[in-house]
């Protein structure tokens, strides 16, 4: 079985740029929420979201979409690869810096983006721009020789993009896959979550008995995946291994999870099989943990059913950066590489009084982990669930 490695990664969230900011902020219990000033929020349940500092976009039709501005910032904002002064937010991105010269040639890296609504901010000007255009535009700016594609599966989009990218490498169909995941705060999405009653008036409190819903966030992450052979050819050092993955559908309800968690259970079991990992060896989980009543209850049900709660610790970071929708899985996967490196699972910001059944599994405190693997899961509208098992480099 060809190992699949994460060889480079980067995130931008409401806690700042880089995985150190994310890990440090979550571990310190920071909340990156701010009042939204891009549009009038007076008609909505909450004025707050996890916003990226300094990200402003499109107020005129001819301007670039916010999601593309963020993508350019993400891919250029690599401290080791882009020294100060070299980044320019309007220049095309130079893929040679990111991927290495060989990956810019024919049969080079495959780009898979993951975004639920992509450039939907442009719709205010009466023009539609499909999400497909994001993958195409980014591939052109990176100088890739093929357009790539976007995976859209609601809030499990980037988890599935990572699973499919890893699967293509394990099967020998690709040697390098670049995953770019991102979603931004727009009135389009903000109003919808407010209207369907999923949004909390106060900052999200995942797995708390008093949780009232989610707080939206914006964010972006990229992960560069390679197979072992390619890793060795390029003399790169792996950050972590993607050991297993699973995807499954509840087939129960469009906008609410199956209360028994049938789809999530199936995805987790499949991830363990794919990674040749036993359920007993899973002791740390980065949960989806949106802060909505039904999602969190479903996850507690699944974790208690599959694992030994006495030796299990889990967390959610959405009380810190908000729910970043299609980008959530990739952002959390990048965080998991740091968790594996530091051997510390950050606490769950926003958690005060654990919900029934969550008490021993979830905590607001940071905890040491002893295992060299972590499970990370996401679920979304349409009843979709996805799970990844990430491990240290063996």
């Amino acid at each position, binding site marked *: 079985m060809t190992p699949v490695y994460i060889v480079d990664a980067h995130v931008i969230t409401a806690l700042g740029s880089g995985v150190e900011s994310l890990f440090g902020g979550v571990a310190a219990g920071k909340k990156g929420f701010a009042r939204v000033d891009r549009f009038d929020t007076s008609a909505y349940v909450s004025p707050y979201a996890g916003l990226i500092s300094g990200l402003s976009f499109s107020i005129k039709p001819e301007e670039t979409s916010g999601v593309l501005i963020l993508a350019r910032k993400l891919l250029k904002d690599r401290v080791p690869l882009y020294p100060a002064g070299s980044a320019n937010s309007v220049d095309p991105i130079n893929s040679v810096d990111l991927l290495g010269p060989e990956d810019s040639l024919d049969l080079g890296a495959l780009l898979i983006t993951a975004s639920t609504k992509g450039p939907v901010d442009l719709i205010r000007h009466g023009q539609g721009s499909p999400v497909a255009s994001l993958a195409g535009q980014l591939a052109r700016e990176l100088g890739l020789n093929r357009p790539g594609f976007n995976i859209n599966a609601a809030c499990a989009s980037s988890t599935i993009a990572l699973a499919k990218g890893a699967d293509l490498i394990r099967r020998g169909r690709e040697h390098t896959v670049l995953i770019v995941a991102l979603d931004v705060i727009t009135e389009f999405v903000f109003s*919808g979550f407010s209207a369907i009653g999923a949004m909390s008036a106060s900052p999200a409190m995942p797995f708390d008995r008093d949780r009232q819903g989610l707080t939206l966030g914006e964010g972006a992450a990229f992960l560069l995946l390679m197979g072992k052979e390619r890793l060795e050819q390029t003399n790169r050092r792996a950050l972590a291994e993607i050991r297993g993955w699973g995807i499954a559908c509840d087939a129960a309800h469009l906008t609410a999870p199956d209360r028994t968690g049938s789809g999530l259970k199936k995805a987790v079991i499949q991830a363990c099989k794919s990674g040749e990992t036993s359920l007993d060896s899973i002791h740390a989980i980065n949960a989806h943990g949106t802060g909505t009543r039904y999602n969190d209850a479903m996850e507690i049900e699944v974790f208690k059913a599959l694992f030994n709660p006495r030796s299990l610790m889990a967390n959610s970071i959405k009380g810190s950066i908000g729910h970043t929708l299609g980008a959530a899985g990739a952002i959390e996967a990048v965080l998991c590489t740091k968790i594996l490196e530091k051997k510390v699972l950050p606490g769950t910001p926003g958690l005060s009084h654990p919900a029934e059944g969550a008490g021993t599994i979830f905590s607001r405190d940071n905890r040491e982990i002893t295992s060299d693997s972590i499970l990370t899961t996401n679920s979304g509208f349409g009843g979709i669930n996805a799970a990844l098992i990430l491990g240290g480099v063996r």
Partner: protein
Amino acid sequence: MGWVFSSSMGRPDRVQLSLSGDHFPELTGKSVLKNPYKPFGRMDNFSKMGFAAIAFAMDHAGISPSTTRDGVKKKRNIALIAGSETGCLETDLLYQATLSRAGGALPSPALFAYTLPSCFLGEASIYFGLTGESYMVEEENMTGLTPLSMAMDCLESGLYRAVVCGVCNSELTKTDSPPGALFLVLESIDNSDDNPGDPAVPVLTRSPGNKPLFHLGKREIKTLVDFFEYVF
């Protein structure tokens, strides 16, 4: 196989495939579905097209809705993968119009759910009890071969015996792809000498190397629409 285009909709043994026409047929639960499914009526047009094409394809493949006459819900380990170039752009514009009214105070929650283009896959999963992987693949200059390739990967993985895959594009498409939806039900077969299979069932094979990706018999498949036209 099943499809919904502006000129025709249905399954190949009952209706002649035609890709172009003046206007889309009206899609109602009665005209499309074997069993009643209440949410069908409130779906957006994009979801109705995709859902209906999946329903025709499943009917053609002999796969019934998940709820049987005695009310038992059957679950099936079948994956569902759809490609699109436009996504649900038309629905996005409709939702934005509800948002623009009354200064953002009256967005439509019912419509918002369908501004996720993958939602019709969730609806089809509920109706047919499909518990396998399910997602939308969005790409420019779509040929339909990416979702087809991913479906073949699913079958080759051994995780699934059957996968539903296809494409769905809204009427706002500005591309060469016709607006509409078409879906296939792919099933893995053991095509050993002892089990030659039904000669009437088209056999799709993946070509070695990168291009072309697929063969149907001896013919190269360059787009998913080719596939349909060759079968006919």
